């Protein structure tokens, strides 16, 4: 998922994790699920957490939510979350800049799923050296 819906919870509670490596500066991985039924609606749940508290000590969901170690309803989430799917078409070294075959957008209102939309992506047109400023060109 190309979004960090847990960040707001962490900042509200003044919690910071330690970056274990340059591959994950935020210091944690959250595992999310959309659960529910057509009658009751679908909701976003944080079902697992692997966070680096102080290297090499890792903590799980029970560290943040001691009474809800099986899952937490993310009722603070409003907005669209992007879930890339399929092959990676173009790699960008940083953030969520890479392009994948499809993007599934899940729209939530206070943690409750409102709708979804699927966007099919094309690989971005190749860029020539002239598209970059001189100091970023290769072989210069």
């Amino acid at each position: 998922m190309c979004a960090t819906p847990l960040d707001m919870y962490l900042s509200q509670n003044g919690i910071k994790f330690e970056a274990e490596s340059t591959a994950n500066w935020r210091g944690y991985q959250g595992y999310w699920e959309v659960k529910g039924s057509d009658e009751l609606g679908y909701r976003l749940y944080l079902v697992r957490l692997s966070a680096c508290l102080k290297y090499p000590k890792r903590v799980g969901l029970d560290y943040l939510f001691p009474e809800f170690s099986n899952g937490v309803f993310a009722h603070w989430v409003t907005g669209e979350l992007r879930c890339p799917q399929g092959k990676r078409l173009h790699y960008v070294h940083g953030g969520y800049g890479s392009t994948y075959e499809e993007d599934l957008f899940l729209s939530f209102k206070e943690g409750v799923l409102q709708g979804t939309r699927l966007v099919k992506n094309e690989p971005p047109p190749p860029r020539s050296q002239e598209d970059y400023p001189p100091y970023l060109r290769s072989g210069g």
Partner: protein
Amino acid sequence: MLKMIVESFYAWIYVSIGIALLAYFGINSLIEYRQSSSFLKSLQEVMGTKPSLKDQLSNIAGYFLASLIILFAWPIFISWLGIQKWKERKEQLERRKPKFYCKQEYLRHQVTTDQAERDSYITDPLGMTPKIAFGHLNKAWCTFLAELEERDELWFYEIPAGSITGKSYVPTKASMKGYARVRRNEIVGEFVYESD
């Protein structure tokens, strides 16, 4: 004769102060230039933005004019410097102030703690949220309330999607809702309960 001596004495004092100031700021500028010049030159070479002869000449002219002002109109220069320092200090204090998502324009209406808590209970059929005010955010809410002083007002706020928040110049993708602690018309704390 005496008048002339007195006048020239004062003139010398005036000019001496100008010379002292010019020497002080000149040496400082030179040190700063030497410290940054080698890095700046290499950066300009890489970027292909080496200053032209015209740029260099206008630079020299600028320095010459500034020197004349410091030397002969130093009271004006000192006043200008004082204003600049005061502005800098003010900006520094502004930068040090804590930043909040909420800005004045997003404040909607004043509420009491009870009113805020009344509609904050979360329904979850799977029971994965506590049945307390603001659910999993209850601890953050309590921390926020603990800092609420008697003179503070509690305001509900809403930031519409696509707006600029007080923390970022990038427009928000979704709406944000929360409560702000307002003291003498200034936001001094906030609690966000809905965001992306």
